[in-house]
């Protein structure tokens, strides 16, 4: 039984154990991209390197076997730097947006492309969840939001923008009133949070906190919630829409205390609650267990502020502290040329599945409109390993000036999609297809920098991955392989940036 010392901790492992496995046994985290249980180590990304202190070599831990008496370090500055360097090389050829321009612009960060796909497939329940999770007040904002999201839309640079606001308003209107998923909450955590101010920011914060199982009491000085929105005309915002959405917040279990002005007694409220969110002006200052969710004249920004504050409170309640979050890594395509957009459009119109179920007339037009989306987003915006580690190691996106042609395409008419620009050529999919004994499978084509993954003899990805698509999508360290109609669960349930 060979012995190894990892970061000054000794462990005995079975012969044939890799350094990575030994480290995991010690609960030492080593980042990996191209490692997947059940297939041979690919040795492609070289992110999992550790330093062998005796020889001074950097070893890929996923495939280096533990040798008796080995001593390795996994987290020294130079090891981290080595990982950063490798990430910077990988991201230098990564072509894709971590966030679609629409989502990126939305102050409440609603996952718009996911909504588009759900509408297109006719899954209005799922779409209702997406819009509510994103905007909390999709119907209200559907009337009052100036729709900053529609401005950077790639479809707009091609012909006309996607009607994003029109769609989320209609989804909200057509959502089933008894949609159970919408009002589902996890078991009570026993924590109680006070929110001061019943505008959109306060209510959005209340919604998110309830969704995480916390008890919420909302103090509103007026007799009704909704703040300045109440001043709008019926034409600008039908009262019925706003009331229905506030009612939803109440049904979720938020306790509204109307007519309660909180001025001098903030301290007593703070003492009676686990945390306080100030969603109004001039009441007090943030600090300690008091947080702030600024109201904003841009309503959707108010919602975003509320959501963000709620997530901070949630973190606070779970005592998640430590260093400030690393800056989130953002891969960006930038402006796309007309031809590139044309490619995307053609691909988009080639998809095989047309509306799954055509029941009601008006829905068809919604589906048609949603079908125009070019899907330039990343389907793994949350679970992408490359984004995660690039953020963690602070990889610089544009360290190198590159000269190669940008190739942003989405390949595949059927259910399995392949985006070569996002592929890091690790070959996990090739190995997984081989493991499942696929008749066609996937092949490495070419070599060197031009290496790419392709289906042999021009078959489709659906034909290539008959038995192994599920595992390939799960294993792919980026969103290079994904399903057209199956969303990444993590991406759908995220509420704000800071969680990513």
């Amino acid at each position: 039984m060979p012995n190894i010392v990892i970061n000054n901790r000794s462990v005995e492992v079975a012969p044939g154990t890799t350094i990575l496995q030994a480290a995991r046994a010690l609960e030492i985290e080593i980042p990996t991209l191209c490692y997947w249980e059940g297939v041979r180590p690919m040795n492609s990304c070289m992110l999992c390197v550790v330093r062998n202190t005796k020889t001074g070599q950097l070893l890929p831990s996923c495939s280096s076997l533990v040798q008796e008496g080995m001593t390795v370090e996994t987290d020294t500055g130079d090891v981290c730097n080595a990982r950063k360097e490798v990430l910077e090389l990988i991201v230098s050829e990564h072509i894709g947006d971590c966030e679609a321009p629409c989502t990126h612009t939305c102050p409440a960060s609603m996952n718009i492309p996911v909504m588009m796909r759900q509408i297109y497939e006719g899954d209005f329940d799922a779409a209702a969840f997406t819009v509510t999770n994103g905007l909390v007040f999709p119907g209200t904002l559907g009337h009052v939001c100036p729709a900053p999201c529609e401005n950077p839309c790639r479809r707009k640079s091609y012909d006309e923008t996607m009607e994003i606001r029109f769609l989320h308003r209609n989804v909200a209107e057509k959502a089933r009133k008894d949609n159970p998923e919408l009002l589902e909450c996890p078991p009570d955590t026993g924590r109680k949070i006070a929110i001061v101010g019943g505008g959109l920011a306060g209510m959005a914060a209340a919604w998110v906190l309830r969704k995480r199982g916390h008890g919420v009491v909302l103090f509103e000085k007026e007799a009704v919630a909704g703040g300045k929105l109440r001043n709008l005309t019926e034409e600008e915002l039908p009262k019925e829409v706003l009331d229905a959405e506030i009612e939803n917040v109440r049904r979720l279990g938020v306790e509204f205390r109307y007519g309660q002005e909180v001025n001098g007694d903030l301290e007593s409220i703070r003492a009676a609650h686990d945390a306080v969110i100030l969603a109004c002006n001039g009441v007090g200052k943030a600090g300690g267990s008091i947080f702030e969710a600024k109201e904003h004249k841009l309503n959707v920004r108010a919602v975003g502020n509320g959501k963000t504050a709620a997530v901070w409170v949630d973190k606070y309640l779970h005592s998640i502290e430590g260093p400030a979050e690393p800056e989130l890594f953002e891969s960006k395509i930038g402006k796309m040329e007309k031809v590139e957009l044309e490619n995307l459009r053609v691909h988009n119109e080639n998809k095989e599945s047309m509306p799954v179920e055509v029941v009601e007339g008006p829905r068809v037009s919604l589906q048609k409109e949603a079908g125009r989306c070019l899907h330039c987003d990343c389907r793994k915006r949350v679970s992408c390993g490359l984004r995660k580690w690039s953020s963690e190691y602070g990889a610089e996106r544009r360290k190198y000036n590159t000269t190669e042609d940008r190739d942003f395409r989405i390949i595949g008419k059927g259910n399995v999609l392949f985006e070569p620009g996002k592929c890091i050529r690790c070959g996990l999919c090739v190995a997984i297809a081989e493991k499942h004994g696929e008749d066609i499978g996937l092949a490495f084509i070419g070599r060197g920098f031009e290496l790419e993954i392709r289906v042999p003899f021009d078959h489709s990805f659906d034909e290539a991955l008959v038995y192994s698509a599920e595992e390939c999508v799960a294993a792919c360290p980026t969103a290079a392989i994904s399903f057209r109609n199956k969303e990444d669960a993590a991406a759908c349930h995220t509420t704000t940036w800071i969680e990513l």
Partner: protein
Amino acid sequence: MPDTCAIATDIDLLEIDRIVEENGRGPEAVIPILQAIQSKYRYLPTPALMRVCELTEITPASIEGVATFYSQFRRDPVGKHVISLCDGTACHVKGAEDVHEAMNLEIGMEKGKDTDPDGRFTIRKVACLGCCSLAPAMQIDGVTYAHAGADTIPSILLDFEKRQVEKSHQNGQKKRAVKETGAEIRIGLDSCCVASGTDRIELAIQRALMEIESDVPIKHVSCVHMCHSVPVIEVVEPNKEPTLYVKVKEEDVSAIVSRHFKPRSPFRWVQSSLLRWTEHLYGGIEGEEILERHDSDIREDHVSTFLGAQYHIATEHRGDLNPGDLGEYLRRGGFMAVEKCLFGKASGRALLALHHGKKTAEQPAGTPWTSQQIIDEIIASGLRGRGGAGFPTGKKLQFVHDAPGEKKYIICNGDEGDPGAFMDRMILESYSFRVIEGMILASLAVGADEGFLYIRAEYPLATKRMRSSIADCEAAGLLGPSILGSGNSLRLHVKEGAGAFVCGEETALIASLEGKRGMPTIRPPYPAQCGLHECPTLINNTETLAMIPWIVRNGASKFAALGTERSKGTKVFSLAGKIRHGGLIEVPMGITINEIVEGIGGGIANGRKFKAILVGGPSGGCIPASMGNTPVDYEALAEAGAMMGSGGMVVLDDSDCIVEMCRYFLSFTQHESCGKCSPCRIGTMRLKEMLTRLTTGKGQASDLDLLDQLSRVVKEQSLCGLGKTAPNPVLTALKYFREEFEAHVKGYCPAGKCKALIDYWVEDNCIGCTKCWQVCPVDCIDTAPFKMHFIHLDTCTRCDACLVACPVDAIKAGSRTKEQREKALCPT
């Protein structure tokens, strides 16, 4: 209408069935099957590949992966003839890129295409043809041409067409009777010599001998090593010193022949004399004059300096051994080492076996050597791997010997991918039996009974020689189930590579033998423990194996007496580039760079200055002239930042740009990277981009630090040797020639090599004759008669035509710094 592109539609699938039948159905058969399909159709048609998948265990993923990995394979149809332009290091420094451009122009290639519109020619670049001392080299179908240049291309194409016609005529030629009398004419027929035209010289000799009805035989000999002077012929007469003629031309042959051999009948004598006299009268060449020229040239200085410092072990009997003749090899002590190991002493069994069939006469036998004895002998000799890394050979033998396992393999690594090196090619072509002997000895040492010779696809002659030599040895009982009746067995197979530099890496080579893409795997496990088909495998470089027989025959101590403390024996190098006398040299370790360049190589050609020497090819580094006292020794070279590598030495003079060389090497390694690990796959690309920016004047000062930093990342974090050594040229260049990089940042190329940094300008003495304007192919010169002309640099292609055309030398070219340029544009 292209007559070659019509094949795609009608693939005869029965032909595919036959190919599969011949090559087997296992996954490892994929490369030979693809090679067979390609040699049949000249590319790989998709229906054929699909058929292969139906018939065999080969999967679509595997066949597509392999077919696109190796550069030998093509998925698109090709023209009637394939022109392979060598882009090796030696060819590169001698202007391969200009040759490419000129060739494109000559055959009317459209931009971005590799086949001309008529489908006659396909042009492709190849990593190295291994004819470095004849650079720039090129191949049309099977025919190699040396010293190609923009000016010689028309004549090369003409010659090729002439050969096409001749081919059909040659078959009808009469056979000449020959007699062994001690007289003979020796001619080298390895690839270099052939490239320089020895095959034509041989035909001319045949004709000349026929003319005088002589029975003197022509003997093919191993590489003569004097590649700078080929074609070389040597005339041997009984009881006389042999006479060597260098740089022989076809028209010189009859004079040479008649100088040594007299016609058999008086009538013939008169006839041939008359003929020569007539030739002379009508402006032919004066016989004696030619002899003078050749003779004196060789007798004196450079042959002795070229050969003087050399010591021949791997290349023993250089220049007089017939490479295809087993009998001759045996008579000169061949296989004595094998006899010594098998029977305790060398008693000529092998020779007897050759003459009397497999039944060997009773021989007094001594005590056979144990495998450990052989290993100990190699350990004592201090022999280290000649493939590059210099791992002690004896130690490697010991590992494989000690590794548990019934089945063991031995592999001869003949995948000499290093552009600018041709030692292995020459050894395989000229000393095939020595390699076999070395493999037998190594197999006895480790207990392997099956072996492979993995030879580059670009070396067809080596493959052919090796195959026939193996067959000869099998027939003589030297290979097969019982070597010389000893009971030890060894079967050898020749496997052709398919064009991938990375397959020189041992794990990639094994992957390739197993029919996979040549992607390296992590070590450990080393091949010595888990190699081919997961059995213990000994992999040695060709040259290493060729040294073993000499060591066993002459004793370890004799070998260890040569060389330095840590590097014993001799090393074969291919010396090429801007050197006066390039060629193949075998020198004792420890000799200095200066002794090689100035002594053996005769210094730099054309009176230029020795600037640096590139040792170890794209994995090595450049050693500046100022460090000419560096001895050739594994450690000393590594300390200098270079590495022994497989033994390519390319000499640069002061007209070569170091930055440009780095760009060239990185574009080579980039192209040859297997693409498996990201540091190498992406890192080499980014390095290449930065270097390209520098050579085109777009570099920034910050690029130099980034270049250095990224080089270290690629060096430390790549998976295999290719990536780990790829940045070496950049790192050494930055160390020794940093000021040259800095100059490029300023837009100035001190060597005047980087085209984008060369300016053409008109000086005051311009007479306004418009001649430059008339020859400019891109119309970039502003002219008005009798006024000073002006050259627009943004459209200028730096073709040099104007400079040549100017009658008063008013056009100047050169690299200038940004300030100089601005000053020239606005003189105030």
